[in-house]
C-alpha cells in the first residue's frame, strides 16, 4: 500500500475524489483568506448594512455574499470563520485523538484491570449523550476557544480508544511484537515503536469522521452561545447571529450554514472513502 497506490485508488473513486478535492479547496481558501482581496472580517460599515448578495464585481467595495447587520462583508467572515471553525475542529480532533490513542494502546497492551477500568469509562461516557456532556462541561468551564476545544476533544476520545484497543489486542499477538518482547524491549518501547505506527491508520480514519462530527457540534454549541464569542466569527456563531435577520436578510444565516454543510459533507465523503480503502471491516 504505497503512496502511489493510494492516490491511484483515490482517483478511481468519484466520491473520494470529490471529498478530497473539496476539503483541500476549503482549507486552501480559508488559509489564504488574508491574501484574498476581501475586507477584514470584523470591519463594519454602517452605510453598507444588510446588503444582499450580488454578482457585480465592478462596484467599489462589492460584497459578493452580501453584508450582515452592521455591514461586515459576509464572504470575508465566511473565510475567516472557516479558519476558526476548521482550526478548532482540527485541534479538538488531534487532542481527542492523542488521548484516545494513548489510552487505547494502554488498555489493549496492558489488558487486565487497566483494560477493564478504561473500557468501563468509555462505556459510561457513551451512556451520556455527547451533546449534553458538551453542554454541561461548556457551561461549567465558561465559553472560550480553549474550553471549546477541550469540550469537543472530551466527546471524541472514546471512539479512538475503542478502535485502537481492538487493533492493539490483535497486534500484541503478532510475531514482531513477540520478538520485541523476547529481546526484552521495554513495554514503553514496544508501545511507541511497534504498536503506535500500526494503529495510526485506523486512528486517521476515525479522526476524519470525527472532524465532521466535531464541526457540527461546534456549530451547535456556538449557536447556543457556549462556543466562540463575538466579534470573532465561527460558522456556528455567524449562524446564531443571522437567526434574528432570517426573515429580512436570509443570506446572513444561509451562507454559514451552507459552508458547514458542504465542509461536513466533503469531510464525510473523504472519511468514508478512507475507511473503505484501509479497512472495510471498520464499518
Amino acid at each position: 500500500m504505497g503512496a502511489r497506490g493510494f492516490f491511484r485508488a483515490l482517483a478511481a473513486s468519484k466520491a473520494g475524489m470529490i471529498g478530497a478535492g473539496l476539503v483541500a479547496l476549503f482549507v486552501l481558501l480559508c488559509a489564504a483568506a488574508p491574501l484574498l482581496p476581501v475586507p477584514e472580517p470584523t470591519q463594519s460599515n454602517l452605510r453598507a448594512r444588510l446588503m444582499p448578495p450580488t454578482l457585480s464585481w465592478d462596484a467599489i467595495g462589492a460584497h459578493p455574499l452580501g453584508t450582515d447587520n452592521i455591514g461586515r462583508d459576509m464572504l470575508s467572515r465566511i473565510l475567516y470563520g472557516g479558519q476558526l471553525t476548521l482550526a478548532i475542529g482540527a485541534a479538538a480532533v488531534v487532542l481527542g485523538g492523542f488521548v484516545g490513542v494513548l489510552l487505547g494502546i494502554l488498555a489493549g497492551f496492558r489488558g487486565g484491570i487497566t483494560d477493564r477500568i478504561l473500557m468501563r469509562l468509555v462505556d459510561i461516557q457513551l451512556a451520556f449523550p455527547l451533546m449534553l456532556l458538551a453542554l454541561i462541561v461548556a457551561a461549567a468551564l465558561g465559553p472560550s476557544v480553549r474550553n471549546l476545544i477541550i469540550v469537543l476533544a472530551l466527546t471524541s476520545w472514546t471512539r479512538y480508544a475503542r478502535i485502537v484497543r481492538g487493533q492493539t489486542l490483535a497486534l500484541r499477538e503478532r510475531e514482531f511484537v513477540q520478538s520485541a518482547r523476547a529481546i526484552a524491549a521495554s513495554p514503553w518501547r514496544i508501545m511507541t515503536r511497534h504498536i503506535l505506527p500500526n494503529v495510526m491508520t485506523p486512528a486517521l480514519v476515525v479522526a476524519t469522521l470525527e472532524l465532521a462530527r466535531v464541526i457540527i457540534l461546534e456549530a451547535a454549541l456556538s449557536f447556543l452561545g457556549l462556543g466562540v464569542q463575538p466579534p470573532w466569527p465561527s460558522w456556528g456563531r455567524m449562524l446564531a447571529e443571522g437567526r434574528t435577520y432570517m426573515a429580512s436578510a436570509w443570506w446572513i444565516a444561509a451562507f454559514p450554514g451552507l459552508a458547514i454543510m458542504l465542509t461536513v459533507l466533503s469531510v464525510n465523503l473523504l472519511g468514508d472513502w478512507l475507511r473503505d480503502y484501509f479497512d472495510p471491516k471498520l464499518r
Partner: protein
Amino acid sequence: MSRFLAGRFGESALAVLGVVTIVFVVTRLLGDPAILMLPVGATPEQLASFRAELGIDRPLFTQYVDFLWDAARGDFGRSFQHNRAAFEVVLERMPATLQLAGSAIALGLIIGGGAGLIAAMNRGGVIEVFVMLLALLGQATPVFWLGLLLILFFAVDLGWFPTGGGGSFRHLVLPAVTLATFTSASIARLLRSSVIDVLREDYVRTARAKGLMPRTVVVWHIARNALIPVATMVGILAGELLGGSVVTETVFAWPGVGRVIVQAIEVKDFPVVQAGIMLIAITFVSINFVVDLLYGVLDPRIRLR
C-alpha cells in the same frame, strides 16, 4: 435469559452511577458554583457563606455521597428562577421532549428504513445514488440550520405551520421533521449496507432457491436480519436525538427539557441544569436497556452469550 437480564440491568445501573458521577465532577470540580451563581461583585464573605449554604465547603467525598443520595431521591435543590424543586421543573417538560423525540425516531425509521431498503434493492442504479446522496446531505446538515430554513419557508413564507411553541399537532410537524433528518439519513445508510451484507448470505440464496415468494424472503429473511444492526443503532441514535432535541427545542421554542436546560444555563440556574441532564441521561440509559432486550428478541444467539 434471566442471567442476561440481570447482567444488562447491572450495566445500566453502573452507567447511571457513572452519569451521576460525571455531573458531580463537572459541576463541583470544574467550576466553583458560588462564583458561577453569585453576581460578579460578590464579596469573599458572601461567597463563603453561600458555599456553606450549598454545603460545598465540606470534604469532597462527603459531598459526593450526599449528592448520590439526593440524586437517588430526585432532589437536585430548588430552581432559582422558578422557586420550586428543580426536578419538578424538568419532569413536567419531559412529555414534550419524549413526544418530539418519539415522533422523530418513528419518522426516521419509516423514511430512513424505506429509503435504505429501496437503495439496497436497486444496487448500482440511479435510485441508489440519489438516495445515498440525500442521506449524506442529511447527515451533513446542522440541525438548527435546517430548522431555521424550515421556519423561514414553511412558517414565515407559506404560513402552513406556526414558527414555534408547542401544544398542537401543527406545532410538532416542523421540529419533528428537523430532528428526524439526521436520524433518517443514518438509518438509511446503515440499513442499506446491512441489507447488502444479508443479501450475500447463504440462507437468502437457499430461501430463493427453494422458491419462496420474493416478498416472504424480503420480510422474513432479509429485513429481519438486516434490522439487527439497526436496533443497536437506534440506541445510539436515541442519544443523538435527545442531544439534538436540545438544539431543536431551542430553535422552535418547543417546551421540552432541552429548552429548559438551555434557558437555565443562560441564567446559571444549576439545579435545573443538573436535574435536566440527569433526567435525559437516565432516559437514554433506559432506552438502551430496552434496545438490548429487543436485540435479544431479534437475534436469539445474543441471549446465549
